[in-house]
């Protein structure tokens, strides 16, 4: 049971990164369906960052490796986010189509990039060393505090980072003027514009920041959960996770605080199949449906309740330009 919960948390934070990133983006009124691709980009960027550290010195410091991994993951993800942002904010292209194109590009690019520019036999060893020892470095007390230590302290840095980011996002959205302005942009850009909020600026910031955070999800999967072992189907797996992240946004009703809980639920559901005794290979896909089924149930429930604050931002998916008023 304990290992199950620990694994659920470890897997859940991957969802949490993607989900918080998507929530920020959606709060600005942009539905980014490129999240799966962007998370893949994060994984590719992270691997490159780690590789670069080893190129610079054969025994780099743990701090540097982790920092470079995070930095490059965010950079790669934000780059694809920037493409999405430019197309949807400045050129006002259709958000759904653009997002799907970004996913297709990001997934394909990652597969190509990892196989041709990053991975080789030596690098694979370096990556798994970085993953197992640097990214998965437990906090002090993980071994000595019994179940508490295992559950809460025996995680890598990215797990805590995810929760910190989610909490910050929740606080910013709820209690700060910047958060208020961002929500106003997503609800009614015309109103925001009329009171002097820089609508375009907020949209770009939210999209870039959201993409960078989502990118960390890809890094988290490769380095933390997989311990640096980059398999040949990594792009496909992350893509699947990415779609779940978007579902999780709905599940969490666009609230980062709910997303923390929701991500652990999703994580638990995702890994459930490995923990159920006697489950046949054919039944696993059935279990994998559960998160989506739960999301649909949440959608039905929120639609029936119809409470305004459980709804997506009112202008989600709509382009804005001032002359339209």
């Amino acid at each position, binding site marked *: 049971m304990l290992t199950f919960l620990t694994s659920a948390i470890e897997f859940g934070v991957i969802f949490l990164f993607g989900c918080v990133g998507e929530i920020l983006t959606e709060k600005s009124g942009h539905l980014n369906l490129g999240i799966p691709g962007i998370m893949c980009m994060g994984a590719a960027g992270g691997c490159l960052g780690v590789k670069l550290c080893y190129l610079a010195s054969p025994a780099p410091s743990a701090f540097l490796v982790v920092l470079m991994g995070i930095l490059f993951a965010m950079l790669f993800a934000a780059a694809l986010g920037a493409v999405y942002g430019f197309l949807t904010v400045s050129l006002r292209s259709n958000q759904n189509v653009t997002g799907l194109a970004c996913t297709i590009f990001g997934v394909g690019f990652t597969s190509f990039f990892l196989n041709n520019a990053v991975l080789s036999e030596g690098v694979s060893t370096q990556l798994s060393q970085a993953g197992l020892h640097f990214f998965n470095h437990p906090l002090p007390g993980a071994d000595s505090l019994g179940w508490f230590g295992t559950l809460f302290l025996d995680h890598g840095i990215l797990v805590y980072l995810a929760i910190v980011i989610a909490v910050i996002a929740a606080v910013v959205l709820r209690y700060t*003027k910047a958060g208020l*302005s961002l929500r106003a942009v997503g609800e009614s850009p015309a109103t925001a514009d009329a009171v002097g909020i820089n609508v375009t600026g907020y949209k770009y910031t939210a999209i870039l920041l959201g993409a960078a955070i989502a990118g960390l999800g890809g890094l988290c999967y490769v380095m933390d959960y997989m311990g640096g072992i980059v398999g040949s189907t990594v792009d496909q797996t992350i893509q699947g996770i990415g779609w779940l992240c978007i579902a999780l946004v709905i599940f969490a009703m666009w609230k980062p605080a709910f997303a923390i809980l929701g991500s652990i639920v999703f994580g638990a559901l995702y890994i459930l199949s490995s923990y159920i005794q006697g489950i046949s290979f054919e039944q696993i896909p059935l279990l994998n449906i559960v998160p989506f089924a739960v999301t649909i149930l949440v959608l039905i429930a929120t639609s029936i309740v119809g409470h305004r604050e459980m709804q997506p931002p009112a202008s989600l998916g709509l382009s804005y330009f001032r002359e339209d008023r």
Partner: protein
Amino acid sequence: MDEYALQLQNISKYFGSVAANKNIDLTLKKGEILALLGENGSGKTTLMNMISGIYYPDEGHIFVNGEEARISSPQDAFRYKIGMVHQHFKLIDIFSAAQNIVLGTKGSGLARINEEVKAIAEKYGFEIDPKKKIYDMSVSEKQTVEIVKVLYRGADILILDEPTAVLTPQETEKLFSVMRAMKADGKSIIIITHKLNEVMAISDRVAVLRKGEYIGCVDTADTDPASLTEMMVGEKITLNISRPEAHADRPLLEIRDLTVNSDEGSHAIENLNFFIRGGEILGVAGIAGCGQRELCEAIAGLRKIESGGIYHEGESIVGLSPRAISARGVAMSFIPEDRLGMGLAPSMSVTDNMMLKNYQDHGYGIKPLPLSDEDTPEQAKKKNARNRFTEFLNRHCPFVDRKKARAEAERIIEELDIVTPSTETPVRRLSGGNVQKVLLGREILIEPNVLITAYPVRGLDINSSYLIYDILNRQKEAGTGILFIGEDLDVMLALCDKIMVLCHGKMMGVVHAEKTTKEQLGLMMAGALDLEEEKGKPMGVAKDTRIGEDQA
């Protein structure tokens, strides 16, 4: 200190070649309430939008407190302490009042805003709960938030665009007392309104605009509703629109005690009674947003009615689907402000748009067998069975008959003189007039017996307008009952047989177009003259006797 808070000199604004405002001079004294009066499209809102930074004037100068001001954005306007409360509120629904008020400002944080809002509210006598969410608020509460929002930004000059249009009389009274409190505090206020009694009640001076031009400004104390109306509507212009003799027969469409709600939930139409007979044009006059849209939608079956009845040829059509109503021969063409918004799919071709409404009539084209007297009973029975079968087939045909639709499109194009490269041109690429002709043409195509047409000449030039009038007259002569919802009183006086005047969803009376005057219509539209009340008749079933009684 300068006497004037705001001075406009020679302000002009053009949209394309149309002058929305022409050489307007306007002054607003410090600490006064100025009413801005004018018909629809007289350029009131355009003028105010230039002061509040939404439009930029093409010509002229604006002076604030005696100094020339360049106002090119709402933020500029705030810097000059000008705030506008728009007719359509700009509020974020899921935010609280306080959050909406503080949005975009650099002032104090969210924590202290609740107290500050309360302080402003107490000062002027508002009732406001800073923590209440907008979606829980009534229209008047939302308006309060908008006004406080403007005051919070430190506005000294307030512009209220038709603030009373959405309010009940009690709420209006409350608003007026707040306005007086603001005036006492030294704020200068411009209020746009159509209601003459309110102008008389609240304002110090009245400025009148007509067709984009400044007519004049008078002290409220020195004027009366009749002379204001005269300033507002102007001289009667004689138009050369033919009006064929109406050969009205029995009522085709009857409206009894109809009450319909607007989207906001208030009564858009209240206890309306009227009827249309075949072969006559009944005009509906009224200031924009007086329930015309809701009335059209209610008749066409697009809007739920609260109470009352709609009868077509003596049968109630309440609750029927829009398609069923249209199948009975009630056609509606509504031209909204953006002109493409309703009824046509802009990216689809003329032919496709024809099919949108009529596709269900198309079948396999199998003709029924002709019945003749020489048939033996057996033969007739067989033929009938076969005809029923082919009819069934035709009705459930999954294919559309493009050829027939194209022929119909060609006929409409020919008959109504629509200028289009081909029947396959997307409607979007046609000019406004031609688009409207396509819409009207399609409605006429189903050979309606009641035609409801709202603003059919909106935005059209003279020639196209006359073509539309011709089309309507031809329908009238063919015995169709026409409900013509219009904007231009001169046109309505020339075209319609009878004119019904609405004022905020209430009927002010029905008059004969030949026997009425523009001034009378103007007074009725502004709510200053109520023929219904004058006669003291109980509201009841529409009766012929009511028409023209007062004129006879």
